[in-house]
């Protein structure tokens, strides 16, 4: 059997077992009920503003074909991943340094503890004034949103490494470098990925709000613009797109995590 057909048959086995499970059908029933109640509420005249599922299904393809829809994905995605990428890089460097040196930690930690509780959006006015463009403002906000959860989780990860692993590594004659690369880093990796997953979710929240406040494109702007132009279908499509984008991002994060930590796969 070729690898391809083996994969296909595996997929088939997985889906057929899923179809036989009552949990699958119960989930489906829940979703169907939700849409049915929504549709009926509209029929009996309870919700006059929000379009019904049937109207949405009819209207959404047209909205998607509208020029610039996919560009909004690209614009928001670029902001999220730029801010997130810079945040991850900096947080990893600073977090690892703080985890390895108690003095550095004592120096920086209190400062971060003051800054951390400030919600990313509270930085908006200052950021608009400080950064020369709204693009940089939005990227900065996503950076702020992602930085602290990543940093904090690295610190926790390094701190929580079981002392037995460090003791075993010492007894086995680890050099400082090996202790760092082969014990501390892999030991902190699960916690780092927890931080990254939380952070990517926050960056989507932040970028949407930032775009609504100061953007001229992107999924957040599109949703807000639809509100300004009374396009109900546009609003709901914007919401759905944002949800999907967030879901896809955490899915990517999980895949990368599984690749980076093969020992955690069952």
């Amino acid at each position, binding site marked *: 059997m070729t690898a391809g057909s083996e994969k296909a048959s595996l997929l088939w086995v997985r889906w057929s077992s899923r179809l036989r499970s009552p949990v699958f059908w119960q989930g489906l029933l829940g979703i169907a009920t939700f849409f049915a109640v929504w549709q009926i509420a509209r029929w009996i005249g309870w919700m006059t503003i929000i379009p019904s599922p049937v109207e949405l299904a009819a209207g959404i393809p047209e909205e998607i074909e509208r020029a610039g829809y996919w560009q909004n994905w690209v614009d928001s995605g670029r902001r999220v991943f730029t801010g997130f990428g810079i945040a991850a890089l900096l947080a990893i460097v600073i977090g690892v340094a703080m985890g390895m040196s108690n003095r550095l930690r004592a120096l920086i930690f209190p400062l971060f503890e003051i800054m951390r509780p400030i919600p990313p959006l509270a930085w908006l006015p200052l950021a608009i004034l400080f950064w020369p463009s709204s693009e940089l403002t939005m990227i900065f906000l996503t950076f702020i949103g992602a930085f602290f959860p990543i940093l904090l989780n690295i610190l926790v990860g390094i701190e929580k490494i079981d002392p037995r692993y460090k003791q075993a590594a010492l007894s086995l*004659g680890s050099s400082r470098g090996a202790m760092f690369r*082969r014990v501390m880093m892999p030991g902190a990796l699960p916690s780092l990925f927890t931080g990254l997953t939380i952070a990517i979710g926050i960056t989507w929240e932040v970028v949407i709000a930032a775009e609504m406040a100061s953007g001229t494109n992107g999924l957040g702007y599109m949703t807000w613009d639809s509100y300004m132009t009374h396009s109900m279908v546009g609003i709901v499509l914007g919401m759905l797109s944002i949800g999907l984008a967030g879901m896809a991002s955490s899915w990517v994060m999980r895949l990368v995590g599984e690749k980076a930590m093969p*020992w955690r796969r069952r």
Partner: protein
Amino acid sequence: MDQARKTISGHCRVDAVGKVFGSADSGPEIVLKNCSFEVPAGSLTVLLGPSGCGKSTLVQLVAGYDTPTLGNVTLDGVSVTGPGTDRIVVFQETALFPWMTLLDNVAYGPIQMGIPRREAESEASALLRDVGLKAFEDRYPSQISGGMQRRAEVARALIARPKLMLLDEPFRGLDHMSRGLMQEYYLKLFDQHQTTTLFVTSEIDEAIFLADRLVILSYKPTTVQTVIDVPLPRPRDFQMLTSSVYGQIKEQALDLLYNEALKAFDQPAIPANGGVRGTA
């Protein structure tokens, strides 16, 4: 195994060792008091005492993960001042690195000591075969059973050729059958490698079955109560558990342990990893 490494070393002396843990609100707690015993080179010495009596603290001190408040630990005449490659601990729960395959875990020590990767891996592979884990060398520790984890960990310790091996209740938590098999397996390895060993347990049968000499501890403050030599011949098998020598030693040890166990029965235990408190 080459002949050179059978030069027997690893004579360990624990000399008048005391350990006090202090905390601001509960005051000082004397865990060990005037503990003295020897682990003769090439011997398998078993430390036997009720659970929670501070056996693990003693192991931490000999390993160099913690320092005694009083007294002194020496290995081949040299004072122990910190962890070193001449002493390796096999812990109660597995301390195999979860992020490395069994092969990488076992090859880690030799690689750190400067042996080329390929050589280290072939030696690790051979040792994994000796402990019956050849087929599992590419698995991660979480993918194998508890008994297999202990065997891999013993292999990781043996390959580093320590002068002294410290086993801290390594078979605790295994079911009765696996435990018995592990003991037999372990004895075979011991006979083969002749590494001086300090083995900690609270199980009297395990202690006598394995030991050349038994060091029996008393409870709170913990000190050495008696040292009993076990003259059973090696290699050993389970039939010896019914011999008269065995019966005598067990009776003697039980008498001593019973009173200590009674004392231990209604007192809070010392945290198993108590020695780590100050350094973590």
